[in-house]
């Protein structure tokens, strides 16, 4: 014990000394949970960043489609979230946390992460596939922001960007998509050509949305026949939020999406299951009979992004009654319907064209853009003033687009 007593002061002294000298090493720790930015090489990792940006858009795309399906009357909100029922009632407030967290954050992440790649000092920028890939998804992100939001913003380097009108957003989309076409074409690989064609279809839609019909028609013509590009999703239990099909997730796991009565029709393009054909139940029992969507019946179900078919609709919209009628009847015939027999005035035909488009692109996120462009020709929108389908809620309002969330406007000094 005497030995211990003698040793103690020495131990204490040694410990103090060691702690003093070893301080810097002692405080160096690993943090394996995140990627330290200093360990990345922007140039070498550009391809990874671009593919990540592509997935960011793929994830955002599912959110955009789901929320716009509620807002535009394709589907009923079958769950209890107050913020989601605001979409169903066309009364989305800037404070809506789902608007921010599910829609805005995801589409702006897709846009910002794509822009990050475009700002890198990369070799062979004029034909670099990472540049083409980033540009096409920056363009689509801006395009969908323009279609669904009343206004928007695009970050400038490390600073948040200014308030942009719908037209300005569409112009930005056109610029990005033009870059994608140029660089993708110059790249010349199969990926490069694919990206250029996706961009052509997107630019056609952007021009149409901006009212530039001639440019829209030109781009629509440039989309190759039978062209279709879809996002393929993956069923990874741990990554369903990022890699899985969002609409199936909210059908299966949350019971959130019920087909609106107007779309409970016999048409192969609107696939659904009626009660009795499935065992799922809506989260909110006041939804009533639960008609689940069957267009995306699994986590791996692909969602179409760009196609010649959409280009055909775009082209037809820029043309007259004969061309529109031809497409209408072609689509009706292809889906087992008799030829169009309704009024043949320009407005009625245009309405039917958009009806057919709504069926062809059911749950593909096009309707809200179409409604904003042609509010009088898009049918089956929730009617302002009509009672909401659930008891206890205010009547349906008259919103036509989403506000930019308060999270953006409060924290973006350039937006105020």
């Amino acid at each position, binding site marked *: 014990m005497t030995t211990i*007593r003698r040793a103690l002061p020495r131990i204490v002294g040694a410990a103090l000394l060691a702690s003093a000298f070893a301080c810097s090493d002692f405080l160096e720790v690993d943090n394996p949970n995140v990627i*330290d930015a200093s360990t990345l090489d922007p140039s070498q990792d550009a391809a990874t960043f671009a593919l990540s940006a592509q997935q960011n858009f793929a994830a955002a795309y599912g959110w955009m489609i789901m929320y716009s399906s509620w807002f535009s009357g394709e589907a009923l909100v079958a769950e209890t979230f107050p913020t989601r029922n*605001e979409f169903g009632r066309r009364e989305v407030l800037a404070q809506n946390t789902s608007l921010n967290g599910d829609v805005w954050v995801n589409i702006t992440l897709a846009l910002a*992460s794509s822009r990050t790649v475009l700002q890198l000092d990369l070799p062979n920028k004029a034909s670099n596939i990472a540049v083409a890939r980033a540009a096409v998804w920056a363009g689509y992100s801006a395009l969908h922001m323009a279609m669904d939001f009343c206004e928007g913003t695009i970050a400038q380097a490390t600073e948040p960007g200014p308030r942009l009108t719908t037209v300005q957003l569409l112009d930005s989309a056109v610029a990005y998509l033009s870059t994608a076409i140029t660089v993708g074409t110059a790249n010349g690989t199969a990926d490069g050509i694919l990206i250029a064609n996706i961009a052509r279809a997107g630019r056609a839609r952007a021009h149409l949305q901006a009212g530039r019909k001639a440019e829209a028609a030109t781009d629509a013509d440039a989309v190759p026949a039978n062209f279709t590009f879809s996002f393929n*999703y993956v069923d990874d239990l741990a990554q369903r939020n990022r*890699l899985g099909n969002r609409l199936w997730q909210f059908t299966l796991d949350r019971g959130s999406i019920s087909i609106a009565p107007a779309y409970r029709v016999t048409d192969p393009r609107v696939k659904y299951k009626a009660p009795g054909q499935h065992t799922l139940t809506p989260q909110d029992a006041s939804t*009533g009979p639960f008609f689940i969507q069957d267009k995306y019946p699994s986590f791996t179900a692909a969602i179409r992004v760009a196609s010649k078919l959409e280009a055909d609709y775009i082209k037809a919209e820029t043309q007259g009654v004969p061309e529109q009628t031809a497409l209408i009847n072609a689509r009706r015939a292809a889906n087992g319907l008799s030829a169009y027999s309704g009024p043949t005035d320009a407005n009625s035909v245009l309405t039917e064209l958009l009806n057919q488009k709504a069926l062809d692109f059911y749950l593909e996120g096009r309707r809200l853009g179409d409604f904003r462009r042609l509010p009088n020709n898009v049918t089956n929108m929730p009617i302002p003033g009509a*009672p909401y389908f659930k008891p206890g809620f205010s009547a349906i309002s008259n919103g036509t687009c989403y506000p930019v969330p308060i999270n953006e406007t409060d*924290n973006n000094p350039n937006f105020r």
Partner: protein
Amino acid sequence: MHLSVRMAGAVRRFVPGALPVFFASSLFAQTGTVSGKIVDRASSQPIADARVFVTGTALEVSSNAQGDYRLVNVRPGRAQIVVLRLGYRAAQDTVTIVAGQTLTKDFQLSQSLTTLADVVITGTAGNQERRAQAAQVASVPSAELVSTIPTVKDVNSLLQSRIPGIAVSASSGSAGTNRQIRIRGAASINLSNEPLIFVDGVKFFSTTGNAMTPGVGGQTTDLLNSLNPDEIESIEVVKGPAAATLYGADASAGVIQIITKKGRAGSSSFNQTLQVDYGVSDQQWTPPSNYARCIIPNNAAATAALVAPNSTNPLCRNQTVGTLVSDNPLVREGAFQKGSETNFAWTGRGGGQSYGYFLSLNNQRTLGNLPNNEFQRQAYRSNFNFLPDSRLTIDAGLGLTKDNTQLPDNDNNVYGFLGGGLLGTPLSRRDDGVLSNDGWFGFARQVKAITALHNEVQNYRTLANVTANYVPKAWFTNRFTVGADLLRNEITRFFPRNAEGSYQGAVNTGNNTQTRIGVDQFTLDYLGNLRREFGRDAQWETNLSLGAQLTSNRNDNTFANGQGFATNANNSVTSAATRTGGQTRTFQRSIGYLGQLQLGHLNRRFVQLGLRVDKNSSFGENSEAFFLPKIGGSWVVSEEPFFAGLSNLIGSLRLRAAWGQTGRSPNPGASLQTFQASPYAITQGGATSVGAGAIPLNPGNDSLKPERGTEYEVGFDATFWNERMNLEVTYFNKTSTDVLLQRPLAPSLGFQQNPFVNIGEVSNTGFEVALISQLIRGPKFAWDARVGFNTLDNKLVDLGGVAPFGTLNRFTPGEQLGVFVSKRIRNINEATGVVTVADTLEAYRNYLPTFEGNLSSNVTLFRNVRISAMLDTKQDFGVYNLTDFFRETQVVTSNRRLDTTVLSRLERLRRYGNPTAGRPAFVQEKNGAATTVNEVRDAYVQPGDFIRLREVAVSLNVPDAWLRSLRRVNGMTISLGMQNLAIWTDYEGADPELLSSAGVDFTRTDFLTQPNPRRAVLRVNFNF
């Protein structure tokens, strides 16, 4: 009980015999011994657990149950013997020790409420008498509370309503769920406001509200439940920076020091206690019924079927269309049950001439009021203290705990009992045997299906510490502490495979998530103290303390999930059709150096200066070391000569003032610019594969440093009325600067996390008052009462230019942190139904109570019967009644909404807005825009003010005469305690004292939360 007695006997025979073999007495030659008895001056009853020490040495022993003590190895010569015991005036005497001889020295202690001579070990460098303390350190007499109030079964109960300034809030009434502890309000916005906890000087991992907290099913468990209250001697609480400076850059939310029981070195005794508890609990709450009208909107055929004679719905069958019907699934299926609790505890305490030991065993089991809610703890502790000679003492402690909590799903959780029962609709009832919702919310999920969920958190904890006190000279003391807190959690969340579709989607194929959390936390601490007396008659004294403290924390969280099982028995993750897993790991280390100089004059005037310097691995690269100063003074005015004239009126009076700083460190990795690993899917050649991607996560901040809390407190301690009344009054003013705020970035920048920045300022000010009075002090009847209360003025002073944020609990300069906001109602026009509201979110109710108080009283009859009761209250705060909000405005199952006769038109307009079709529910005052009930929450952020009859306890010390037939039983106490007996409140929900997310700051929301139950516990305690 039989086994426990046998075990105790074995220990009693082994320990006293074995220890001297290790600690040979030959070391102690040439020394003397002092022994004696300590008794109450008035009653001559022996006083147990009095601390007896020799000043200027490491020698300290405690008295046994018979009041006997024995100090050995006392160096020959004059020695000052000091005796301390809570509730008694300190006693001391100087004796002359002769080598090889035993001196007898008895002490008689007088009862007193004066605390000046009490010694605290927390918040200062080395042990310190209260008289010298500049800042207040509160003490909880844990051992006394545990022994007299049977409902005290955990650390949180020991802290609840005992000390002004400490607020404890429950997350739910489920057994084993966590509590939130706040000391002097809240200062951090984005970091935890939980105090630091130490057990015998070793840092204890208790953080709630972060990713490492084991929690399942919408609830979290409490890591403090690992501690067996029977092991605890006392708890000391350092309330703020003025006193916590020496705890460094992570102590701004306060420090709690838990001191476990020690052996009775020098007592030459062995005492055992055996405690047996049995208790019951009752939910004492009838959940509200669900209502609906027998009609299916826009569907005449379905409505007709609903009310038809052959309807499958028993409630609407044969009813008129639109009839209001009700159902109460929770009551109908008997979801709530009577809970029970059992507790077996054994302690053994004793010691020989130069050693002491404390041993404890505990097995506690509590069954909650919902199925599959259970808490069980097995705890073992052994503490040894060894006094080889007068210069060295060694204390070693080892605590081993296994606790297991099984939780029901509840709160914001679609699988919860309350969610299922309170959000269901009577329209889904059916009695034709076909599986359905049957009145429950969401899917075919009734009591059986909810009970089948298996949520279990199992903790294995090892707490070890060794402390050596070495006193080479009377003026030079050294304390060296090393300790470890090793925690292993095993968490299970299992959804059984079922054919009924009880859960959601693929989960019905069976889903098992296994999580393993490992925490390794180490503390290394050294403190040296040099004391010098100087001046005429040694009237001046200096104490210089220097020390260092290293802490290291490693958290490892690994999980595996499997989905799709062939059978429920074969449910290991490996057996699942689909499997996935993940892992996170964090490290945090800190090193701090501290120094303190205390100058004392005439043992009644004291000044302290202190400084601590900290570095932490989570500081930014460019951040400097963190310097934390303190200064304070204490003046025992009543011992000044000029005070003599007042001594009849005021027995003692001490004035104190302190100023100090502490910090709150950022989380590990918070300073780094980071990306997040995020995979991408790519299709090439017709095949889709997954690659490793990266997306921006956090822009980082290389100048990140801790929050800095600066506090001053002033106050006084006084005794009156022949030391039968003690009053402590403190005013504190705490300002937190460099507040660590996750500055909200515009989402359009694309970062997934907001970076931590040091901006902003938060202030907390208030008064704390504690009054203890021995109203009647007689041999046959004694009555004492305690009153404690505190005020709190919490304010966000500055947000550093960041726009106010938060849509329910908001952060706005000039308002309380997390103040509840609403677009407040300006006007209700009953005639037109138009409800006008503010254009913007405005502060509505406080998140933190601004007044908390408690009143407790003890009556002792014939020395053997003790009756105690406690009332407590919290005032001036709000609770978001999200349960009612959902039931009235979202799923609409409340009769308040559906039965128009329940509420007045005015109240209906206030709650639901304008019912006129085509008109907005609420109209903004200035811009005329429509808004919804989602932002007009006046009716649902309700006043939470309450007064609660928290505890009532009765205990009887069985007279010795009655025990003669029980061989070897020295004492027996029978106690009955009751908790949560009554509450008085205007809150409309089940319980205003709940936080459905107690692990998260600034969310005082009652959402489908199980209320606190009423408990009654009967205890029999034997002393051997």
